[in-house]
């Protein structure tokens, strides 16, 4: 069963405007409620709700907020709308269908962390999202929900947007900060964490679109009500972007802990007639792939997927049927990480290149048996040795593809062709 909390009004076009947000939804009533609370009360509420970051890392939101120093130094709130994890398209839809829900969640969050300024960093390709969110911000200013002395509360908050320009790495919070500062989007060494030294060296909180929108509902309904959905350690609902080989791909909001098999076979209408499930990538292309038996028993929450050696990530579920060649899909994926490595750390810059070249060689029919081992070895040398998680994000899928579908890699090396695909597909694949 879907539980539509954040997506309740997605189907109604007028929800995009402030007028529609007031008429169909509850307008900015939750902001009014929040401004009568103590900022610390809201932080405690978010902690009690169990909300964890919805962008990929799953870090507890309230705890992140409480890392801010208590010295009254100016601090920034950044909304991470640089959605780039392959397979993910939930934040784009939220910005386009329900921009005011995000803005209201951000003003409430800004109040909770006592920030006077926030930015929404939107990936460059999302021109529609940018236009829609900018318009919604103007409406919020005109209605007195942004700017000086919001609704007579003495709280002042300004909000603006910033457009990225095509770089996956800017979705990493310190890479995003570098980019917002007008530099190339290279991540920075942590510590110091952004909560202490972030944007322009000032305390900064970076939260994902879906996370900030959820804050509104936690403040509106209370922590216990929010916890009614989900599990003990994975509270609330989550948006899953399902793509690949299902009949009805799209965004689905379900309680965390929802069975993956129900997501695929009930909500998404299953596979094309005659096709069998082969594998599922449960959390964006960085997440280790699950085999069919694993996928059939997985539940979509942080702890179950971690136990299975994978991760919930951004909630991008890529469903792979038996018409796909795993060597080919790993090749596509490694091309991506090689392309997106920022080049700062050697294990990532060189490792992603080697991974891609090695798997491309196998996929071209010229691989050697020891290349399969090489993929595994390179990957293991890339993990935990770099400033940010991109290196691990490339290594984890490589290890899982090679080890869980080794037979397909061996077949490709031995026979010089895909076990699954005919000769026809070779040309399209070659450029990758």
């Amino acid at each position: 069963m879907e539980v539509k909390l954040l997506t309740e009004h997605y189907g109604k076009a007028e929800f995009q405007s402030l007028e529609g947000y007031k008429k169909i939804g509850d307008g900015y009533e939750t902001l009014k409620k929040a401004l009568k609370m103590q900022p610390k009360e809201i932080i405690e509420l978010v902690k009690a709700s169990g909300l964890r970051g919805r962008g990929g890392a799953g870090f507890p939101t309230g705890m992140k907020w409480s890392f801010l120093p208590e010295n009254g130094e100016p601090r920034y709130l950044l909304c991470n709308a640089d959605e780039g994890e392959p397979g993910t398209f939930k934040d784009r839809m939220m910005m386009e269908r329900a921009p005011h829900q995000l803005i209201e969640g951000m003003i409430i969050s800004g109040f909770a962390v006592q920030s006077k300024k926030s930015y929404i960093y939107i990936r460059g390709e999302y021109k529609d999202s940018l236009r829609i969110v900018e318009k919604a911000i103007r409406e919020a200013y005109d209605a007195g929900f942004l700017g000086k002395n919001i609704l007579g509360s003495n709280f002042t908050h300004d909000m603006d947007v910033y457009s990225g320009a095509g770089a996956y790495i800017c979705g990493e919070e310190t890479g995003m900060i570098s980019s917002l500062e007008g530099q190339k989007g290279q991540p920075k060494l942590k510590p110091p964490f952004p909560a202490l030294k972030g944007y322009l060296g000032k305390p900064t909180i970076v939260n994902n679109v879906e996370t900030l929108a959820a804050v509104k509902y936690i403040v509106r309904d209370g922590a216990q009500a929010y916890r009614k959905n989900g599990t003990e350690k994975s509270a609330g609902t989550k948006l899953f972007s399902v793509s690949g080989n299902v009949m009805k791909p799209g965004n689905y909001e379900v309680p965390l802990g929802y069975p993956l098999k129900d997501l695929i076979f009930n909500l998404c209408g299953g596979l094309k007639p005659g096709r069998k499930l082969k594998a599922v990538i449960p959390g964006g292309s960085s997440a280790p792939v699950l085999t069919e038996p694993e996928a059939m028993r997985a539940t979509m929450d942080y702890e179950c997927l971690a136990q299975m050696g994978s991760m919930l990530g951004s909630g991008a579920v890529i469903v792979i049927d038996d018409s796909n060649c795993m060597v080919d899909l790993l090749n596509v994926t490694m091309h991506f990480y090689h392309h997106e490595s920022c080049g700062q750390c050697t294990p990532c810059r060189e490792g992603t290149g080697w991974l891609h070249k090695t798997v491309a060689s196998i996929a071209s029919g010229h691989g050697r048996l020891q290349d399969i081992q090489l993929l595994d070895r390179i990957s293991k040398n890339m993990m935990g040795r770099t400033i940010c998680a991109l290196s691990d994000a490339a290594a984890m899928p490589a290890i899982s593809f090679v080890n869980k579908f080794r037979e397909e890699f061996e077949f490709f090396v031995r026979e010089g062709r895909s076990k699954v695909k005919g000769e026809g597909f070779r040309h399209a694949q070659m450029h990758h």
Partner: protein
Amino acid sequence: MFSLSEEGVAFVKRELNRYEDRRSAVIPALYRVQKENKGWVSPESVTYLSHLMDIPSAWIEEVLTFYTMFNKRPVGKYHVQVCCNISCSMNGGREMADHLCSTLKLKEDEVSGDGRYTISRVECLGACDKAPMMQVNDDYHEGLTNDKAVEILRGLK
């Protein structure tokens, strides 16, 4: 010599004061240059921006070369970017890129003889539920077939 229009100059000056730090205006300024320079950023326009913004050209170069949405070479009037990441590849994205290239008799990233098209393969554009898809300049076209994609390109004014 490259120079921005009057409105372009006014835009860059506004952007310089819009963010907490002037340097943040580099990305928006490069977007503006690209828009006024037929879709790409030339080396001389970097020198121009450096003077206009009073920001070292190395800082502008650094941004220009890091981000994929800035074109360092001329592109066609319609820059056609076909997603070839995982979900699109599983649904015919790569074949569609090939089909567009062969139909328009073009190599990837080249400008067509009439200056109308450049076809590029790009990474995930966040429209995976509507695979395969392509972006033409700012616009997304989703849920395509090879024929539909050709039809869209031919129909562009």
